[in-house]
């Protein structure tokens, strides 16, 4: 049974939260400014709690089962992170308080910058960007500011390998750059000839995802970087796949100039059903003058017995502020907790095991599914969800059928360069039994695809909801609901778009 909406369960006169009567004399209300009509639900506390609890039960999360969603790094989100982020010393802190009263928070941010610098090899880090795509835009603005500062104003072109993350083209275009796609070669690396052909004096830079969205570490990375640098361009590294290389390889050592981190992937902060993320950006020393303002720095060194004084500073040639205040602080607390628990050794072990788990799955599936770039992968790999002798079966059907086994499907239809792509990222926190069960399910599904295709095409069968009519949703656009009495009185109609 679908759960009714909060509007369906509203009844006039109910209230779930009460406030004390004013302890001050009442001021007169400005009648002309007071709202006349307030069509809002009225619900008791227990009904609100039951409603949202029941809604939660309609979700699959990392806490309820395996979530091998490629590119998204759905690793376990440690419970301690939720505790530390909720310490009143953090939650009750106002972002505009005098900095002397927020030394704990500023110190934590400073240390987070230091950890991210050590892991990536970059010289400076901003914690301000709110998510991965936001970090990308920040990084591209920094690249543009660099060229502009040199009076080099003709660099209008951004190169994007076809194995880059999906947000990269839009992030680049948002700053006004022209996007040019670079194809991959047959081993899944950036095609060097194609790259060279585009490297001229209009080149602003290259946005490379490494390891890329095929789950492969580009075997020519150093050469790629050199070609771009020789043409006067900068290299942006999309750090969304950093979970494969912590303590193994530092992006800055490969010559990458700018990179964002996804704290909600690599550093175990929860995805929250679509956010909040956090997308700090690291840069080389040369680019640090362009970082968004403010960043955290030591403004007075420690004396013998005390801690240093931390403050917020504005980089000399900053691109400006990319959001209000100092970034997603609550997410930084979670990521910091995670990093100090893992320590140097633990970070490397996390990456090694992420790569181990992905290669294990790939090894067990390569006889059943086509793996277009079959070599040692990093933290994820891409296989094709179709067979010539099973016409009518698509990656989508395999994905939906996996739900019947209690698994969240892999990312499907991405990257675009692999037909019927199924992109699988197990992460390091899954045990062998789970991986084996997942393999068994996929092998059974492959058998069904050939011998009982309907069972895939009609899947899922064991979930509360079946496949959704997405065409209906887009044609008869219903984006909100109303109170029952409003339906009776004015009956807002679905918005019909052509």
């Amino acid at each position: 049974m679908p759960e009714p909406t909060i509007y369906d369960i509203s009844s006039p006169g109910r209230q779930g939260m009460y406030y004390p009567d004013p302890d001050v004399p009442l001021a007169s209300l400005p009648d002309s400014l007071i709202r006349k009509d307030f069509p809002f639900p009225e619900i008791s506390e227990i009904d609100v709690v039951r409603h949202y609890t029941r809604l939660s039960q309609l979700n699959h999360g990392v806490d309820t089962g395996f979530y091998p969603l490629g590119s998204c790094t759905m690793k376990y989100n440690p419970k301690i992170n939720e505790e530390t982020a909720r310490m009143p010393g953090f939650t009750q802190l106002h972002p505009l308080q005098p900095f002397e009263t927020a030394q704990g928070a500023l110190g934590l941010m400073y240390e987070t910058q230091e950890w991210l610098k050590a892991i990536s090899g970059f010289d400076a880090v901003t914690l301000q960007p709110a998510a991965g795509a936001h970090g990308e835009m920040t990084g591209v603005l920094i690249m543009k500011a660099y060229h502009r500062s040199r009076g080099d104003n003709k660099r209008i072109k951004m190169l994007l390998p076809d194995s880059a993350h999906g947000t990269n083209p839009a992030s680049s275009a948002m700053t006004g750059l022209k996007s040019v796609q670079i194809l991959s070669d047959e081993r899944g690396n950036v095609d060097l000839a194609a790259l060279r052909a585009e490297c001229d004096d209009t080149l602003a830079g290259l946005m490379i995802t490494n390891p890329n969205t095929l789950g492969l570490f580009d075997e020519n990375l150093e050469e790629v970087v050199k070609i771009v640098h020789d043409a006067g361009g900068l290299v942006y590294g999309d750090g969304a796949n950093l979970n494969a290389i912590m303590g193994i390889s530092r992006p800055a050592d490969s010559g990458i100039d700018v990179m964002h981190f996804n704290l909600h992937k690599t550093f175990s902060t929860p995805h929250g059903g679509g956010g909040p993320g956090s997308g700090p950006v690291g840069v080389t020393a040369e680019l640090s003058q362009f970082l968004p303002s403010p960043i955290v720095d030591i403004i007075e060194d420690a004396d013998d017995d005390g801690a240093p004084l931390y403050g917020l500073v504005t980089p000399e040639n900053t691109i400006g502020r990319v959001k209000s205040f100092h970034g997603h602080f609550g997410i930084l607390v979670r990521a910091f907790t995670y990093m100090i628990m893992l320590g140097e050794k633990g970070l490397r072990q996390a990456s090694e095991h992420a790569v181990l788990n992905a290669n294990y799955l790939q090894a067990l599936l390569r006889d059943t599914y086509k793996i277009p770039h079959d070599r040692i992968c990093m933290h994820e790999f891409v296989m094709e969800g179709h067979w010539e002798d099973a016409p009518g079966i698509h990656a989508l059907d395999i994905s939906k059928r996996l739900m019947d086994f209690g698994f969240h499907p892999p990312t499907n239809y991405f990257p675009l360069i692999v037909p019927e792509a199924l992109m699988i990222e197990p992460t390091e926190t899954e045990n062998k039994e789970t991986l084996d069960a997942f393999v068994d399910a996929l092998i059974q599904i492959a058998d069904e695809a050939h011998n009982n295709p309907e069972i895939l095409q009609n899947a899922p069968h064991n979930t509360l909801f079946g496949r959704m009519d997405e065409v209906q949703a887009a044609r008869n656009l219903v984006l909100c609901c109303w109170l029952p009495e409003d339906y009776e009185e004015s009956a807002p109609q679905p918005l019909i778009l052509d």
Partner: protein
Amino acid sequence: MFLPHTDSDREAMLRTIGVERMEDLFQSLPTANLFPNLSLPDGLTEMEAQGELQHIASANETAQDLVSFLGAGVYNHYCPSVVDSILRRGEFYTAYTPYQPEISQGTLQAIFEYQSLIVNLTGMEASNASHYDGATAIAEAVNMAYHVHRTKRKKIILSPGLHPHHRETVHTYIQDSSIQIVGENLSIEAGPEEIINLIDQDTALVVMQYPDFFGRIYDFSALVEAAHAAKALVAVHVNPLALGMLTPPGDFGADIVTGEGQSLGIPMSYGGPYLGIFATRSKYVRKMAGRLVGETTDSKGQRGYVLTLSTREQHIRRERAISNICSNQGLLALAAGIYMSLLGKNGLRQVAELNYHKAHYAAQKIAAIPGFEIAFESPFFNEFAVRCPRPAAEIADHLLTHHDIIAGYDLGQDYDGMENHLLIAVTEMNSREEIDYLVETLSEEPHA
């Protein structure tokens, strides 16, 4: 830490892969600096990490330790226990974006309800699933209005009463476009009439704040009419809590409503994560950035929800998308949805009025102190600017050092000539005793 494999698991898995050692998995990486020394400390157990974080947290002096009247866009409100109790459900917070609707109906329906609540709160026709924060929501409004006019109109008017961080963020977003920003340099005394004078045929959007950064509430009806006569759009940036009592912008014709959703049950957390509210008219839905949830039916004929109109978004339209935004503030939208459901129509009005009465009591008392006066005559909600007899920074410093009071926000930080102005916010968290204490300490201030 958090790794389940036993030694024998690991050996068996390496054997299956066909390599001997873990290091063999990294053959394709550049050999220079492989497995670098990071000079980072050893790991900690949970117990040790908890102690370390407790130590760090205790180095902050918070709204619990101090008496605080600091607002300026972020407010110390009561967060009902129901909100966090639900947010802690792993089914919500450990889920990803609901791309697989069959097993994501919890997130999808919660967002759909959030969209509905925002539509009703703001008086608009459609809301998206949220942006990063209030500042980036405004930047997206600018971007949208520019595209609604097919990039032909270049002028964006930003009210000088728009939060300084929000204005700075818009500048960062548009720095390499042909958009021109005007209006910010108007006198801060300027009301909607002065803004109207700037509207012309090249104006794509007018952005006003309601209540504005100084706490002032204006009637924007005439401004909206003038903007519409010039075919310009109007965005109104709100404190959503104030809409528990104030006329919603939809009623006076706004085309876009953005807002900082922090006041809807989200803790201050030193600046985030917060919630960027974005609502608009139906006719602009296809130009709106961000995720959208729509109602539909499943194969069993049941009502269900899906992400819809995704052809607008970056993962489909790539470089031709209007915005690069991918994530929303899913968990914060959930928090705001729970908060609004729990308070409902009457609770939201009650808490809004409580803020209003307390702030007016404080303003009246402060205005009675010799040397202090309320800076503007406009009506206000829970925040107001006070002209002080000497620099606000000095007064704030004195009150913090000697009385453990954060007296407010020093407006001289952002506005030349306002060095003597203090922006004071009063919420339901400030008792009458606290307000009286503030008034008493301000009265004792040496004014010479």
